[in-house]
């Protein structure tokens, strides 16, 4: 147990370091982008005088390192800063969108994770059977289509015929049941996108364990194959499975901007892309920090679970 706590503390510290490096990298990248907020926000009609006036007003004429240090100073005190374009506190912008993104992630995860693990286990149980191959081929064809395309196909089959809405433009006041209904198609699209990866890893991890001597032993003792998989193989294959689930959950939080566009879903990804488009550095910084925290946090959680479920790792040293 002590090992575990030390590990968590160590990892959290490293996580903070990662976030710091990330904020620096993002800041430099956005700085390196040609053009700045003043030009982008005025678009085709920008006049040099108006651009200069906006720069003066927003302090964009200050040297980059000073702006970064100012931003960092606010950040350390828990202040996400103010959006340059909207002149509104970023926390107000991010909070409702983060809530939507988390809702969609959770919704998708509730469908995709059990589905992937069950399919993966069944595929390993009936490996090389037609069930195995068909589920495998279906999953592979689902991930080999671009997300927007999967979305369009679902819209064609399920939305235009009137079963589900094609737009998931939920607002904070939408009741839960209606939210679930409205977000069904994006959730299904994402399910199709992430299931294959998790399923294949589950299958591979279990089959990997099945080759080990102790499983051979269990076989020889005459234990039923399904029991071997559930009781003997699965617990030992948990670590890689949890890892791949964490990776996919992180993807669901950070990588769904295209699904947001197709289904008109007000999520965090669109905010960040617009932030990049308009060179609104604080918005990009804040959303990338949120994404990165989700990534670091989920990975940490996966490691905790795999360590906690593995007695050998728990008692090491």
């Amino acid at each position, binding site marked *: 147990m002590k090992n575990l706590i030390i590990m968590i503390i160590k990892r959290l510290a490293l996580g903070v370091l990662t976030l710091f490096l990330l904020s620096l990298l993002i800041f430099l990248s956005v700085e390196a982008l*040609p053009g700045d907020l003043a030009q982008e926000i005025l678009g085709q009609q920008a006049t040099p005088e108006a651009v200069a006036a906006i720069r003066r007003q927003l302090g964009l004429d200050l040297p980059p390192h000073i702006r970064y240090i100012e931003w960092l100073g606010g950040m350390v005190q828990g202040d996400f800063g103010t959006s340059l374009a909207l002149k509104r506190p970023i926390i107000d912008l991010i909070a409702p969108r983060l809530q939507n993104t988390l809702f969609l992630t959770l919704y998708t995860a509730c469908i995709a994770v059990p589905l992937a693990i069950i399919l993966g286990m069944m595929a390993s149980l009936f490996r090389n059977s037609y069930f195995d191959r068909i589920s495998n081929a279906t999953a592979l064809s689902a991930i080999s289509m671009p997300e927007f395309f999967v979305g369009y196909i679902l819209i064609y*089959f399920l939305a235009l015929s009137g079963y589900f809405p094609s737009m998931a433009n939920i607002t904070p006041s939408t009741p839960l049941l209606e939210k679930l209904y409205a977000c069904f198609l994006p959730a299904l699209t994402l399910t199709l996108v992430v299931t294959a990866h998790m399923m294949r890893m589950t299958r591979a991890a279990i089959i990997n364990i099945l080759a080990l001597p102790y499983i051979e032993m269990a076989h020889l003792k005459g234990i039923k194959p399904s029991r071997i998989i559930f009781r003997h193989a699965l617990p030992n294959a948990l670590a890689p499975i949890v890892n791949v689930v964490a990776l996919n959950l992180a993807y669901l939080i950070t990588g769904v901007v295209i699904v947001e566009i197709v289904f008109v879903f007000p999520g965090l990804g669109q905010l960040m892309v617009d932030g990049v488009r308009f060179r609104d550095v604080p918005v990009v910084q804040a959303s990338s920090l949120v994404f990165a925290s989700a990534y670091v946090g989920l990975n940490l959680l996966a490691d905790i679970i795999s360590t906690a479920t593995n007695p050998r790792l728990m008692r090491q040293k």
Partner: protein
Amino acid sequence: MSLISVLIWLPIVVAVSLGAGWLFRQTLIRLVNAPTAKFLRTAPLTASFGMLTITIYVTCAVFAPLIAPFGESEILSASFEPWAAPYILGTDNLGRDVFTRLVYGARNTVGIAFLITALAFVAGTLLGIYSALKGGIIDQVVGRLIDVLMAIPSLIFSLLMLTIFGTSVISLVLVIATIDSTRVFRLARSVALNIVQLDYIEAAKLRGESTVYLITREILPNATAPLAAEFGLRFCFVFLMISSLSFLGLGLQPPTADWGSMVRDNAELISFGDITPLIPAGAIAILTIAVNFVVDWLLHRASGLKD
């Protein structure tokens, strides 16, 4: 195109593909020498189909100018001519032959995807194993940097990088390879971590073997299985990445034909039940399935499981 007709056609397509795979395997077995033939006999029908598909794709890619009836960017007709000779798969919105673009697409897409994946694997694997082997401060520094790159959503990262460095093929290849190599790094490192604890590596270290020797001769051969499985998926994700990038207005330069952009260009037609964009999407899907079938077969052999 209704759901029912899809359900009727699907088994027929599957049966025909497996039959073709079987024919291909039997032909190959006759053509090659005895040990190879013995090895090939272990291939299930799915893997045979995979090999057949890959052969066809590679042929298309290599001999594209000979196979394609028209030039890659040649404007031939009005928009969206129907499927009839001389345009077997009709023409696209600019009046270019779809079949020709598909064949050239094999060359460009598969070529670029292979290049990107190969780069990503060389960089990711070597760095991953090196980190695992050295441990300590090197492992920490490299690990943090990779973590930072992975924590940025990949689409946003490529959007940033491609806007900064321009959208030439070279920067496209380098940017996607960088993103992919971080994923490979993670896998390679975790696999290598298990291997470096084993006794024979300790023994080799004590013998005073060089790092290069340790990586290439001792660790890498024992890490091929999971890396190969990853290769199968990563390879196909490259198409999707290119397609997603063209959704955001980036991607390959025109008039180069690539499947990802071909899907994107006509994608909106699918929501009217027009199957035009399904052709390039299908080309990607079939290749994905084929590659992974072959990888599965090889993995299965490598795992040593008898059933």
